[in-house]
């Protein structure tokens, strides 16, 4: 079923993605890694992935309607 996935991008990942939140049309389940690649965010910079409020790994498939947040390492003090 077609729809959109909402991707929220945090902190230094915005150096690549430019927009803090994007909506991407999907025809169906899609590998998250391909979406991240499409946003030009280097995979190794993504430290924490959240789908619909729960931590997941980057190698999942996302579906229309999902909200995904991408965080870099936030380890400053």
């Amino acid at each position, binding site marked *: 079923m077609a729809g959109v996935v909402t991707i*929220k991008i*945090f*902190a*230094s990942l*915005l150096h690549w993605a430019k927009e*803090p*939140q994007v909506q991407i049309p999907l025809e169906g389940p899609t590998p998250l890694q391909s979406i991240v690649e499409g946003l030009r965010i280097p995979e*190794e910079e993504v*430290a*924490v992935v*959240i789908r619909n*409020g*729960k*931590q*997941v*790994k980057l190698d999942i498939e996302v579906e229309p309607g999902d909200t995904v*947040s991408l*965080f*870099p*390492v*936030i*380890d*400053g*003090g």
Partner: protein
Amino acid sequence: MGGSNRKLTEADSFEGFQNNRYFRQLILPGVGEEGQKKLAHAKVLVVGTGGLGSPVLYYLAAAGVGTLGIVDDDRVDVTNLQRQILHWEKDLGRGKTESAGEKLRAFNSTLTYHLYPERLTEGNAETLIVNYEVVVAAVDNRETRRILNQTCYRLGTPWIDGGIREYSGTVTVYVPPRGPCYECIHRTHAARPASPIPLLGALPGVIGSIEAMEAIKLILSIGIPLTGRVLMYDAWAGRFEEFIPAENPGCAICSQAGE
């Protein structure tokens, strides 16, 4: 309010001064006299006196946490001043624990401060932590967090972690033996080379204040602790989010902590 807008004089009793000082929290449900006694008897170790450590220490001292341990081996540098509000221009080149201790003693002279001008390592972590009931991490690197995590889970000491970068911050509370622990959440992270993190000083102000609030909640056993959840602050978008971290049943640290 409460007749507390004047300076302390010799005619004032110490008890009266303290009652005025903490008046706004003495009338707060969840704190009150019993809570204030708990705070006065509490011992909290704060690791780091930088951007996060400054608001953490100010607010724990303000609340009347009786004993504060302060760990930092660093010296005050001019680039620290835009965010590390415990350190002032006159402190440049001075040890940070000494600088912090001076400000805090002037701010709340009724508390006990233990200064540890050293770096927290695997070798000294247990000795530093064992006499404290809560640890607040205000550090700038993953290695120290890993040491804190391992040591606190071994000792059964709750610890609070905060992190900052650019326009984002994060806070989590770990209460052993309950997982997930720091290692569960961050096990996939590659180590980053140390480099200056870009940020505005208000960001650690927000995150450090949340860490202090969580420490006070733990001491008083009030509210809902930020355990099993990670709070994220997105300053750019002006929003908070939280997520439930993934458990790691095979975690070498928290899966064995309760056994």
